[in-house]
C-alpha cells in the first residue's frame, strides 16, 4: 500500500510531468485560460494517459517483445495513442459539445502530447508491471491535471490584475508558470 502511495506521490509531485520533466507543455499554455476548460482537459488527458499506458504495456509485452520488434515501439505506441484520442474525441463530442468546442484544437493534439508518449515509453524503460504502469500513468495524469488547474487559477487571477502592456498576455503567463516550476522544485526535497 505504501508503495502505491509513494509511486503516486513521486509521479504527481516530485517528478511532475509538466514542471519537472517538461513534457506536455503545449496544452498547459493553451488550455489554461479558465479553470473549467482546464479541468475538462485534465480529465481527457487522464483518460487517454491511463488507456494508452495500459494498451502500450500490453502491446509491448505481448506483441513487440515476443516477436523481437522493439524498434517498432514508437510507431505502434503513436498508433495506439492516436486511436485512443480519436475515441476520446468522439466521446467528448457526443457527451459535452460545449467542452468539445472549448478544448478546440487541443483535444486532437493530445495525440502529440509528449507526456502521453513519454509516460508510455518510460513504462517500458523502467520495466513496470501492468498494474504499476497503470499507476504510473494515473500519477502522471494527476500531476498534469494539478498543474493545469493551479496554472489556470493563477491565470484567472492575473487576468484581473493590471499587467503592464509589455507583459500582458503570454509573457506574464510564462513568468507565472516559471515561478510555479520553481515552487514544484521544492518537492524534490521530499525524502520518499
Amino acid at each position, binding site marked *: 500500500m505504501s508503495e502505491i502511495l509513494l509511486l503516486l506521490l513521486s509521479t504527481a509531485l516530485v517528478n511532475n510531468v509538466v514542471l519537472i520533466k517538461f513534457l506536455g507543455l503545449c496544452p498547459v499554455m493553451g488550455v489554461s485560460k479558465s479553470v473549467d476548460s482546464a479541468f475538462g482537459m485534465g480529465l481527457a488527458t487522464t483518460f487517454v494517459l491511463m488507456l494508452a499506458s495500459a494498451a502500450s504495456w500490453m502491446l509491448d509485452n505481448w506483441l513487440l517483445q515476443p516477436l523481437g520488434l522493439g524498434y517498432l515501439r514508437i510507431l505502434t505506441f503513436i498508433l495506439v495513442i492516436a486511436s485512443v484520442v480519436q475515441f476520446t474525441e468522439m466521446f467528448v463530442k457526443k457527451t459535452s459539445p460545449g467542452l468539445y468546442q472549448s478544448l478546440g484544437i487541443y483535444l486532437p493534439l493530445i495525440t502529440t502530447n509528449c507526456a502521453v508518449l513519454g509516460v508510455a515509453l518510460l513504462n517500458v524503460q523502467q520495466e513496470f508491471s501492468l498494474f504499476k504502469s497503470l499507476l504510473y500513468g494515473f500519477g502522471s495524469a494527476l500531476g498534469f491535471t494539478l498543474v493545469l488547474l493551479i496554472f489556470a487559477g493563477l491565470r484567472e487571477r492575473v*487576468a*484581473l*490584475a*493590471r499587467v503592464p502592456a509589455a507583459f500582458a498576455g503570454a509573457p506574464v503567463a510564462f513568468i507565472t508558470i516559471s515561478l510555479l516550476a520553481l515552487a514544484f522544485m521544492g518537492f524534490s526535497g521530499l525524502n520518499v
Partner: protein
Amino acid sequence: MGFMNLFKHFLGDDWGVHPDDRKRPAADRPLRTMPVPEKLYLPLQQHLGGPARPVVLVGQQVKKGELIAEAQGMISAPIHAPTSGTIVAVTDITAPHPSGLTLPAIILAADGRDEWIDCQGCADPFALDPAEIGKRVAAAGVVGLGGAAFPSAVKLTGAARSKVKTLVINGGECEPYLSCDDRQMRERAADIVDGIRIMLHATGAREALVGIEDNKPEAIAAMQAAAAGEAEVHIRPIPARYPMGSEKQLVQVLTGKEVAAESRTFDIGILVHNVGTALAVRAAIRDGRPLISRVVTVNGNCANDPGNIEVLVGTLAEEVIAFAGGLKGDGIGLARRVMGGPMMGMQIPHWRVPVVKGTSGILAFDAQEVAAQEPDPCIRCGSCVKACPMGLLPLEMSARIRNSAYDEAVGIGLKDCIACGCCAYVCPSKIPLVQYFVHAKGELAAQDRNKLRNDATKKLAQQRQERLDREAREKAEAAAKRKAEREAAAAAKAAAEAAAKQASETAGATEGESA
C-alpha cells in the same frame, strides 16, 4: 445564538461606516412651509414601477388633490395636483436622475387659490377593512418616502397576504446631512404613531418597532412620549451608523433576524416602512388627502440657511433653495448639486429639477465636501470588505467588473450589493467602487432586456411566417373555391341549356303533334 452570530462575536460586527453626520444645525430649526410656487413640474414617473398615465388635457382646470395621472400596471402610483390651477403642458423635462436625461411631466400653473377638492376622510380607520385601507393608500399615490419610492400600497397589501408579524418603522435616517425624518418625528410624533397604528391594522402585524438612531435624542424623546399609551408600538434607539436605515441592516439590528441573500424581509415576516410614509398613510386615510407634499432637507456648506422645508411635489429645486435662503455668494463656491442623501443620492446637472415624492434632500456641496481625488491602484487593504454591510468583497467584485466579467461578479454576490457606498467611502485609494457596482447592475439589466427583446423578435418572426403561410393557404383555398364555383356555374349553365333545349325540342314536338 446561531453560528454566524458567534462568528461575528469574535470578529467584531462592525459593518458600515461612521461619517460625520452634519445634521445640525438644520435638524434643530423648525419646519418651514414653502408657499405655492408659480408653476409645478410633475414627472409621470416619481416611483418605482410603471409610469403613470395622464388623465388631464392641456388647458384643463384642476383643483388641489385632483387626480391628474393614473397608475398603470401592478406596481405604479397615481399623481395628484399639488395645488389648484391650469394644466399648461405635458412635455419632457430634466429628470431628477444622474443621467441628466429627460422624462415626461405634467406642468401645472397655479392659480393662487389653492382650492382643495372634496376629501373623503375617515373618522375611524380601525373600522375599515384592511383591504380597503390598501386601496385608499394606493389611490392617494403614497410611495415610500425614504428614497426608493416604492408604492406603499403594494407593500401593505402584500404584507397582509403573506401574514407579516412585525412592522419595522425606519426612523434611522442614517444618511449624513438629512434631517427631514428627524424633524417630522420631533414635530409630528403623535400623527406618526397614529399612522403606524393604521399600518398595523392594514397589515395585521402584531407589533411595530420604530428604530431611531441615537444621534437624534429629541426625536426619540418625542416619539416615546407619543407612543407611551400604545402597547404595540415600541420605540427602539439604535446605534448611529451608516447604512443603519437600509432595510436588511435595520431588521437585523432590531429583531436579530437576518434576511437571506436575494430574498426580502417579507420572507421572514417583517415589513419595513419609513416614518414619513406613516404620516402620508395617515393623511390618506384620516383626511382622504393624497400625497402632494413632502419635507425636504436643504443642506450643504453652500446653503445659506440650512433647514427642513415642507414643499409641494413638483417644485423646482431652484425655488426651494431660494426660499430656504439661497446659496452662499450666489453659488460661486458650488462644487456639486445632489438630490437625496450624500451617500446614495444623485448628482443633478442643474437646479431646474423638480422635487419628486422620493426627494429627501437638496444638497449644495462646496469643493471641500466633495473632495474629488484621482483614484490610485488598489492596495488590497480590505477596508471595503470590513465596511460592507452585506458581507461582500467589493475589491474582488470591482476587479471583475473592470474586466467586464459581470457573470463572475454576480457569482460572488453582486446581486446582494445595496449600493450604499460604504466601500467607496472608506477606500484609501479613492476607487469609485460603488460606481462600478451600479454600472455592472445597469449593464446586467441591459443584457436581460436584450435577451427579452431577442425572444420577442423570435416570436415576431415566427408569427410573421405563420401569417404568410396562412395567407398563402387562404389564397389557395379561395382560388380553389372560385374554381369550383366557376365549374359548378358552368355545369349548371350547361344543364340549364340542355334542359331548355330539351324543353324547346319537346315543345316543338308537341307543337308539331298538335299541328
